[in-house]
């Protein structure tokens, strides 16, 4: 099953993940002004939320890797050396 992590300190409370999620995984905590992962089990790992999140606060693990994006291998090797 897909595991999702929300880095609460990094969440800016913009609600964009709530809007874009096709399976309504998120709810929004108005008091704390942050997103909440409510239905992790419904995540289809489309990663839309993670790509849209302005602060990079959302992380997905254990999801099936579908080669739906094109990534430059040379640059990816370089990024692995970033401190």
């Amino acid at each position, binding site marked *: 099953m897909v595991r999702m992590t929300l880095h609460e300190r990094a969440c800016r409370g913009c609600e964009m993940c709530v809007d874009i999620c096709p399976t309504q995984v998120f709810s929004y905590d108005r008091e704390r002004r942050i997103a909440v992962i409510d239905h992790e089990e419904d995540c289809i790992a489309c990663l839309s939320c993670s790509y*849209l999140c302005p*602060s990079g606060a959302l992380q997905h693990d254990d999801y099936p890797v579908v080669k739906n*994006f094109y990534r430059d291998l040379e640059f990816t090797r370089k990024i692995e*050396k*970033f*401190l």
Partner: protein
Amino acid sequence: MSPQTTETDRTITLNAEWLSDCSGCHVAIVDLHEKILAVLQSVRIQHFPVLTDIKDYPKATIGIVSGAIRTEHDRQAAEAMRASCDLIIAWGSCAVYGGISGAGNLHAPEDLLKAVYTENKTTSPHPGPSREVSPLRPVVTPLDQVIDVDLYMPGCAPHPTLIFEALTALVEGRTPIATQESVCGRCTRTMQKTEVDCIRRPSEGLPDRELCFLSQGYLCMGSATLDRCMSPCPQNGIPCSGCAGATMRVLTEPNRDIRTEIAERMARLTSIPREAIVKEIERNAKTHYSYTMATAMIGEKPTFLIRQWLADAEADHD
């Protein structure tokens, strides 16, 4: 590290060199303040222009090189560092991406010299230097275009906390903690949806202190910029200018671009149409892409058409 470390234990030697840069990355190392003492317990500093007066390049374990390759001297110094050091770190955004010197790639070196020396509108014309000053290379490149680089430390300058983490990790032989979060990850401004319907220039009005710049209609590059700074600018009233380079996704995925990433988010936060935001960033592309345009990771993206954008902006202006 034990406080009892003796001189003979300091087996790690460090060389540093600055090329075409502002020296801020080296000053950031000095900004470790008393923490530098912890580093010095394990490291012996040798060639290091901001701290020592050693002119040659003694053999060293770690080599820190900041600055872009702009001049012939830059290339020679970079090669001397590579020859003398076991491990080379490209230090700061200029060494990693080419930095702001990279904006010079939009002009031929002769045109740059002409603009500065013979056709300078704010001072009396004077022939450019012909001796003792190293000639410009045809283009500005990041460090890894002239020598092999083992590690990259982006940031303008990298925050001393991250420098300390990187240096101590190297000394201790562990992998440093390197976040993939963007500048927004540490910014404390509230990002909320607003009815703002036009882009505001930095000089227009006084931004709200608590609200996200994008929500207010000001262009801020925080959401598309790697956090290597601890977000000081947006926290102190200045929108992010993207000095640590784009996020890792933008760097590695050719179909992602700084302007569309920002426009996507800003259009969702405000009533400003996405296309208008893209157009505004393109119009000021020299500013918004200044730190990274010299690296192939940004400059060679199929969507990066800066010459066309600038020509369009000029045509609009006329």
